[in-house]
């Protein structure tokens, strides 16, 4: 029997065929229908329910008919891995593949290696694999994926209401399995690093969840994350609707309906896969939660690509940046901190790990579903753009927003209000809406501020800054938010003019606070502007003449000036 290739090969369709006109057996048709360029031969066996020999025969014939190509394919971008998991393997055969979805993702031939795995590491891993039993390897792979994708509760396998003792017990069980000492004296090569990564993450999870304070903050963080995500969705829904208002209704409505159906299917499939993996039913919103803390995005990575020197632009010209004279013996100064979860030296991949990718696409799916639903509902109610009916629609949104406010879904409130106001509201409704908006922004500012503080605590300055800036956007008259933003820019050590602006804003809002003034002094010192620092320090001392810290800063400013 000629083999068409190895079980890990991924057959692809060549395309252009007209399936109905082909002389195919039902089995061959079934195989062909399942070939999507993502499913490996081994998986096809599961999916089609054929025996290896039957499948082989079918594949050979399909190749002969020049309908498909086989052979291990080079990385095909995984567009929707979620769809693949939607196809459940039939239960009639014992699976040669590990059953957990997480491990299938790595076991599958087309998946890229986990984003932060170096190629050298991959080669070692193969050697090391031989030292591990299949069961050990499976456990390690499964947990490596988990460690970097699911939230802390699910990583430890406890419920959100778990008692401390339960969390400890869960962690200790995992620690015993994944501490590298469990493999002491065994040469397991690169797998040791994987163990270390798993161990680090479960330890972090435990340390956060085992202390009342950090656990509360983390819960808040998850909740906040869900709320903020909700807000994004609603905002996008609104944008989509805006777009609709400028395009012919019919085409868009059909598209929306189709999108809705598609998105719903995808989202449901992904959720199934995710829930079955975690074995605990979690609300869909939480399912969308990306790895925590979120991969450092905008501030750290994008600016890293286009580095900008700390530019004191906008500062008085009398203080040239060259005023800084660093000591000769030293070399470096602290700057940004990538998320602690990111291992050494590997830039965070934009695509993230496959699991994160899957999650993202799940989130996409949900987003599209919600957008589509909104569109559909709007379209149902309108039919045609009549101003009179617009008013009513605005009222509807306002009512929805008020209901959402009761549920503390501030993100939704924000989005719904935006929609309501744009669609038009009466005078009284506008007052109600603006009150509600004020409350929503205040709440969002508070949540963002908390997120920022929490991220800062975990050392993820990039995320912290993002949250702090959001907090400033929602609550522009909260001095604390501005001060936090300033301090974060200062800690990151980039774009110090932004730090200065934020610090100045904080002082403007709360002129009596010495702490805020000290932030500004520090910013000036960091930017090498001792004159400005001195001026600010003197102003601060005028408020509180014997503040030791300010005096120390003043002395530093004088020293720098000389």
């Amino acid at each position, binding site marked *: 029997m000629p083999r068409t290739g190895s079980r890990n090969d991924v057959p692809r369709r060549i395309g252009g065929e007209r399936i109905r006109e082909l002389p195919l057996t039902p089995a061959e048709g079934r195989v062909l229908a399942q070939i999507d360029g993502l499913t490996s031969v081994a998986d096809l066996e599961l999916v089609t329910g054929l025996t290896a020999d039957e499948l082989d025969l079918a594949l050979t014939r399909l190749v002969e008919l020049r309908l498909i190509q086989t052979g291990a394919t080079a990385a095909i971008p995984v567009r929707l891995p979620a769809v693949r998991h939607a196809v459940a393997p039939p239960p009639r055969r014992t699976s040669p593949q590990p059953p957990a979805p997480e491990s299938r993702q790595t076991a599958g031939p087309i998946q890229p290696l986990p984003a932060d795995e170096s190629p050298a590491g991959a080669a070692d891993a193969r050697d090391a694999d031989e030292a591990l039993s299949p069961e050990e390897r499976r456990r390690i792979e499964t947990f490596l994926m988990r460690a970097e994708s699911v939230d802390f509760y699910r990583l430890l396998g406890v419920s959100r209401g778990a008692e401390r003792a339960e969390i400890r017990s869960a962690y*200790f069980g995992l620690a*015993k399995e994944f501490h590298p000492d469990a493999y002491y004296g065994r040469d397991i090569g690169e797998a040791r690093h994987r163990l270390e990564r798993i161990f680090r993450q479960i330890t972090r999870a435990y340390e956060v969840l085992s202390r009342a304070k950090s656990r509360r903050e983390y819960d808040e963080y998850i909740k906040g994350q869900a709320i903020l995500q909700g807000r994004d969705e609603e905002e996008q829904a609104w944008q989509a609707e805006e777009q609709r208002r400028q395009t012919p209704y019919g085409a868009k409505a059909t598209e929306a309906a189709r999108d809705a159906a598609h998105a719903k299917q995808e989202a449901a499939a992904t959720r199934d896969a995710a829930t079955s993996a975690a074995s605990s039913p979690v609300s869909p919103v939480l399912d969308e939660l990306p790895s925590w803390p979120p991969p450092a995005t905008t501030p750290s990575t994008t600016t890293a690509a286009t580095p900008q*020197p700390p530019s004191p632009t906008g500062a008085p010209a009398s203080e040239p940046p060259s005023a800084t004279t660093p000591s000769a013996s030293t070399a470096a100064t602290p700057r940004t901190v990538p998320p602690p979860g990111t291992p050494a030296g590997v830039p965070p991949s934009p695509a993230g790990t496959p699991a994160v990718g899957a999650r993202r696409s799940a989130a996409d799916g949900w987003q599209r579903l919600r957008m589509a639903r909104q569109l559909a509902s709007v379209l149902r109610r309108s039919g045609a753009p009549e101003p009179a009916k617009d008013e009513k629609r605005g009222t509807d949104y306002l009512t929805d927003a008020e209901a959402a406010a009761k549920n503390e879904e501030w993100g939704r409130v924000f989005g719904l209000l935006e929609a309501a106001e744009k669609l038009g509201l009466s005078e009284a409704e506008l007052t109600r809406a603006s009150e509600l908006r004020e409350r929503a922004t205040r709440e969002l500012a508070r949540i963002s501020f908390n997120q920022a503080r929490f991220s800062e605590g975990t050392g993820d300055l990039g995320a912290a800054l993002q949250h702090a800036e959001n907090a400033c956007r929602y609550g522009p008259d909260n001095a604390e938010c501005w001060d936090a933003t300033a301090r974060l820019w200062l800690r990151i050590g980039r774009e110090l003019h932004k730090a200065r602006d934020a610090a100045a804003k904080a002082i403007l809002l709360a002129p009596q606070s010495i702490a805020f003034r000290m932030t500004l002094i520090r910013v000036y010192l960091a930017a090498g502007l001792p004159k400005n620092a001195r001026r600010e320090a003197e102003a601060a001392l005028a408020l509180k003449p014997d503040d030791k810290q300010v005096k120390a800063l003043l002395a530093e400013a004088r020293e720098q000036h000389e």
Partner: protein
Amino acid sequence: MERVIGIDLGTTNSCVSVVEEGVPVVIPNRGGYKTTPSIVAVTEAGKRLIGHIAKRQAITNSENTVIAAKRLIGRKWNSPQVATSIAMYQYHIVEGPHADVRIQLREKIYSVPEVSAMILQEMKIIAEDYLGEEVTKAVITCPAYFNDNQRQATKDSGLIAGLDVIRVINEPTAAALAYGFGKKIDRLVAVYDLGGGTFDISLLEIGSEGVFKVVSTAGDTFLGGEDFDARIIDWLLAEFQAQHGVDLRQDRMAMQRLKDAAEKAKCELSATRQTEINLPFIISTGRNEALHLQCQITRDKLEELTGDLVQQTIDICANTLDEAGLDVEDIEDVVLVGGMTRMPKVQERVADLFKREPCKGVHPDEVVALGAGIQGSMLVAEKSDVMLLDVTPHTLGIMVVGGFFEPLIPKDTTVPTSQTKTFTTVRDNQTAVKILVLQGESDKAEENELLGEFVLTGLRRAPKGEVEIDVSFEINADGIVAVSARDLENGQEQSITVTASSGLTKEEVKEMAENSHEYLVERRRGEETEKTSQEAETLIGEIERYMPQVEEIVRGSEHGPEAITKAKEVVEHARGAMRSGVPDAEMKEILDSLRRTLRMFKAVLT
């Protein structure tokens, strides 16, 4: 499976254990004691003495008797602790070639790890005698608050002693391991370890799964029983001076006697409320008049003299609880470790602080060695029931602009762990950065311990702040620190595995290990000779005891007188050989002829 011994290398006493059939046991030394004094001496004849025997001769040979070498291990010559030790001890502490500390014994100068190695070698021999097989693998304990240089020096000591040190673990952690071993308990415990030279406090979570997780640890590596002794000595000196107007400090022998007496009084005061210190003829004055030191010391007096030392330990405990975010109510048990915890005042203060009576179930002198033995056997076991999750006791980081210390891995982080931070250049056209790896809690780089350094070169010439460098720290399960720096632009990378410096180079350690091995071989041979001469001695004794009787019986027989003469010759020859020393083979022959003679004698008598 190869056996692994656990060694508690203490400041004043050391202890060795092994796990037998799943049960950890302390191995007694030849004298039957479970602990061996960590004392090394060299006699006038150049003979090396270790343990009890070294302790006994310390008074007459104080200049060549090393006590509390652990207080010097891994320290720099110019550190204040070394200066204190020089003032406190009678032996000669000198500067080594790498600004390290060396000890002069007679004509020879030894490094501190060499001295510690002598003690470890003794512990190794104790274990080998007990087990009847060679032992090469060991887990050694060290104070939790030891820094990496001190740990490395401890490892080097093991290496010099011919041991493969598979892990260095913290003393309080080891104690907790022994305390919770096989108990199936879920508990948060505090281990208060006040030993001869160091103080440690560790908080641990013990899980019934057999997991021991260190939550927090702190201490003082220069605070222990030795300091309590010093307080008593100072008091005695002052009393004596007030009484007789004589300063005993000038007399080394007197000082050593004082030291002994102070230690003894301290121990006695744990059981009684008052004791007498009686040192007759402590010194003679110029007019040939002998002075005696005789005084009473009460427990209250001792507590008054050492109150601040106890307070220091209590402060550290309170601070640690605070830093860990725990209340005393969270602590479910308190374990006392180290001989100093026998002092009633210490127990009282600890009980006051933790609002509970300390656990009495562990032996303060043996528990650390037992824990080390358990960890050793668990590491090499196929499937282990016990898992130890330890922390890094000090903050790790690098030096940044302005001489400041930038932490990367904070103290009390569970290992293995890793952390990365991005740094940038501070000067225009800077093409290289020097990474100084430091350990400690001070903001100022210079106040922390330097673990290692390296340079990353080939940076792009650019205005300051433009070139970015990622610095990564990684600590693996063995506690080994690896640091790498990477230019984010061109991907260039430099890294080092931080081999903390024990004060010795690799070559030196290797050479010392060889010397120590030679010594061991010689010593083993010496022991062999000792054994044969002892046997010969016994045989001769017996032969001579039977001689008159046998002579009486065989006198009349034909070959009788001849046989007696021959027997006398054999004895004479043996005596001569033992006096002058002969090769092993010849000695064996002599033994054989002695045995034959004795057999013959016995045959005649029956």
